[in-house]
């Protein structure tokens, strides 16, 4: 029975059908289905499918955005009923688009994929000042800091953020990954980032790798 419901949730996320997602999530609660399993085995699986399709050029931003909307609709229903200890959250990620840059569509796609992957995601939004990143790292203690930039001007803010973390003695606490159209692996290495991804689906893999690395180092 649960498996059917999970399958339906997966399909609803893939179809970007938020009303159906909400309905199915409510049904899951009514039927006593474990909300965490409904989220991860149902909704998140749908987002994984969309992420793979996007990576392979079979789905586009409009599709991902609607799937994310459907995912969040189900999350709204299910999350209050999930026991935090059951989640086995794999890591905490702080995301933001660097100062001077309002291009946040890539970051938003990334956020939905990270949410679906079970990360605890804190989204600082766009046009984020370096001090805001620093303050949030001190407060939230994330495992990973994800920086996004679409402009050649704003990308120059990335090394400054990393330098600031170094100066504040916070650099060792957090893995830094960078991405966005003008960013390359070489650039990531040059500015002292720990990871780079050319797109959102790849970013999930990079984040998982960095988390493993961080746990090993701990």
């Amino acid at each position: 029975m649960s498996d059917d419901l999970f399958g339906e949730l997966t399909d609803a996320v893939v179809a970007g059908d938020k009303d159906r997602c909400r309905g199915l999530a409510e049904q899951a609660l009514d039927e006593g289905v474990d909300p965490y399993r409904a989220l991860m085995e149902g909704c998140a699986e749908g987002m994984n499918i969309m992420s793979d399709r996007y990576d392979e050029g079979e789905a586009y931003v409009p599709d991902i955005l609607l799937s994310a909307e459907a995912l969040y609709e189900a999350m709204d229903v299910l999350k209050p009923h999930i026991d935090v200890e059951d989640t086995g959250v794999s890591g905490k990620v702080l995301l933001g688009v660097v100062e001077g840059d309002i291009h946040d569509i890539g970051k938003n796609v990334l956020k939905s994929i990270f949410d679906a992957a079970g990360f605890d995601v804190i989204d600082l939004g766009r046009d984020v000042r370096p001090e805001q990143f620093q303050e949030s790292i001190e407060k939230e203690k994330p495992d990973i800091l994800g920086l996004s930039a679409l402009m050649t001007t704003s990308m120059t803010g990335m090394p400054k953020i990393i330098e600031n973390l170094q100066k504040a003695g916070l650099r060792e606490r957090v893995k830094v990954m960078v991405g966005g159209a003008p960013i390359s692996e070489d650039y990531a290495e040059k500015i002292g980032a720990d990871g780079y991804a050319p797109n959102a689906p790849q970013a999930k893999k990079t984040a998982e790798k960095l988390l493993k690395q961080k746990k090993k180092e701990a």
Partner: protein
Amino acid sequence: MKDEMTSMERWKALLNGDPVDRIPVVPFASGFDASVNGYETMGDFFAKPEVQVKCQKRSREMIGYDEPPHLMPPGYWAEQWGSEVELPYRKAMSSPSVTDPVVKTAEDLEELEIPDPKETMQDFHKMVELAIEDDLYPLVTIWGGCISAVAPHMVSIEQFMKWLRTDPGLCEMALDKSAEFTISVAEWFAEDFGTDTWIPWDPLPTDANVLISADNFGELVVPRLKKVHQKVLDLGLPMWFTHWCSDHNKNIEAGHVDKIPHGDPGVIYFGPEVDVERSVELFGDEHIITGNVDPPSVQNKSYEEVLQLCKENIEKGKDSPRGYTLTCGCGVPPRAPPINVYAFVKASRKYGKY
């Protein structure tokens, strides 16, 4: 190494299909132009017509490239609709940003009136006039009928993307309104400035296949962009200079780029996502092709490396049948070292002689 033509002679010869002494260099350097003119931010450059024209003219003289001023209205084709725009008066910004698009709902869009250019574009008119008075043969942004002129200028990108799936009729309505507006701007400019003193140009970043499918582009954008381009050509303008910004490979494969009238020839400007060799092969018989050295390299690499990248680009494009110009992929980064922009000119003189 002595040039046989002036920058303006070379630019005009390229467009007219006449011989040029060497590869014209048109790096698309607007923000950079403000920076090398000593402006700490790009705010005044985008806000003040005389600054935008002056900076581009002077840096062209200083660096020695052949680019005419390419002009963008202070309202960024967004304020005209009633959207809020932040001009780049902060150092971290490189261009105006639409901070609050005017359309939030279907009703907002339905009620949105098409602006009167004579009421909302006077500063842009003045800017074009200044450049034409100085015989600079400018590239003038004429932007409509494409997603890039609508999202985020009228409606947020996210909202527009969602409507593509849930209510494509609203996308069509937004695109139609933007097409109508831009045609009226072009008609006004053609009437006041004639059609042999300026070239229309449009950039298409939000229409790229990193965001939307070739099917969406074909169904929604092609008919409207085609209409805008054709109407403007019918006014008597000789060509379009169109920047197919970001990844348009699927739009190329689907034959959509071919369907858009660019003039005979027009100028087709792809980003680094489309190799120059491929541009020449696909469009070189009909159009002028631009080079596309990638912008982060111009910002981050050494002079010698940039010179080498320019050389490689020139070698691929130099013999394109209708002409070729050395260009930076999506424009020169505003904070690029000036010597790296000079590398474009140096490369043209060293490797681009005809």
